């Protein structure tokens, strides 16, 4: 069975735990967590990931900056990125999609939706 590495960039521990909890239900995933954009960027450069989940609103470096920097890195040009946002921040969401994010998840978070998006972007069936 193939294994995939997923990076979860989220400053809220509650949200991070919930996303990781949901992703653990998919077999064959290795999950790495980062608590803000800078931490996420460090982990992106030191490892190779197959899927990235990132919150938009984070201190130090926000999710939009992270998506933009990741897309400028040749190693992450095509790696799927999912942004986590509130509906109120629809402008941010549209901007993130415009600069290269592949999908989005709105709050309140549903574990079913996280699993569905991860499976779709990693082409995992069953």
């Amino acid at each position, binding site marked *: 069975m193939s294994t995939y590495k997923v990076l979860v960039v989220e400053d809220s*521990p*509650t949200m991070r*735990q919930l996303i990781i*909890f*949901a992703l653990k239900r998919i077999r064959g995933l290795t999950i790495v967590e980062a608590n803000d954009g800078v931490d996420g960027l460090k982990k992106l450069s030191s490892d190779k990931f197959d899927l990235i989940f990132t919150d938009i609103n984070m201190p130090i470096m926000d999710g939009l900056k992270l998506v933009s920097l990741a897309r400028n890195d040749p190693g992450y040009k095509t790696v799927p990125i999912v942004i986590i946002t509130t*509906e*109120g921040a629809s402008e941010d969401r549209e901007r993130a999609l415009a600069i290269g994010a592949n999908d989005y998840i709105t709050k*309140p978070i549903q574990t079913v939706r996280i699993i569905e998006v991860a499976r779709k972007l990693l082409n995992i069936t069953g």
Partner: protein
Amino acid sequence: MSERDEDKGLTVKRGEEFLQIFKKGAEFTQDLLKENERLRYQLLQIEEAARLRQEQAGVDDPELERLRRRVENLEQEKQEILDRIRHVEEENQDFANRYVEIENENNMLANLYIASFQLHSTLDFREVLQVITEIVINLIGAEEFAIMLLDEKTNRLTTMASEGLDQETLPTVELGQGIIGQMAKTGENYFIEDMENYQRDFTHPIVCIPLKIKEHVIGVIVIYKLLEQKSRFAEVDYELFTLLAGHAATAIFSSKLYSESERKLSTIQGFLDLMTK
């Protein structure tokens, strides 16, 4: 004989000839009708004989009987298989419904587990308030809300943390005053009936959840606005409110006690240091 008499004789002769021809035609038609009647009778006899032969052959031929029974059995089997397919389809539908239910329950349990885990992950008062805020935003989906704590000396509820609102603008509430004060006094949850037409009013929230340790209320969570995409509460939200009512209260209470004991310990330690110097 005159020419007139000759014509008359000729006409009579032709009339007789025509009559003869007509009679012959009538006789021929009669013959045909008789023949038709005879043939129809013969046909009926042949059909009757054939039917009797067929019936006799059916009763007597064991191979035909065996095949007929086989056809009946196969028809019965086909019906049974169709019934079984229908039953399996119904079961499949039932499993699909159960799967959706279990997924929802799983989602609910995951939310409750994470919320509970996070609430008891720290003894720092500010961090506890932060965790409650995160739960209310991320798991319940509220945009504007406040966490108010009861000062037992003054019997007033004061905002300790808020989201989407300026904390300075939020009024303090006396125990028993208005909806918030009443809920804090009785310990009952409040949910507004008409959420669609709600206009923000700090004395009248859409939700008011008392934070209780057993029956002792230490504060309330008041919600004034939900996220745009959240039009109503789901079952999981009510479970989260129940969890918050108890667990958030104990987490707040424990963290406050811990902070006080830390402060006292530090004072005693300082005093002991002075004594032993």
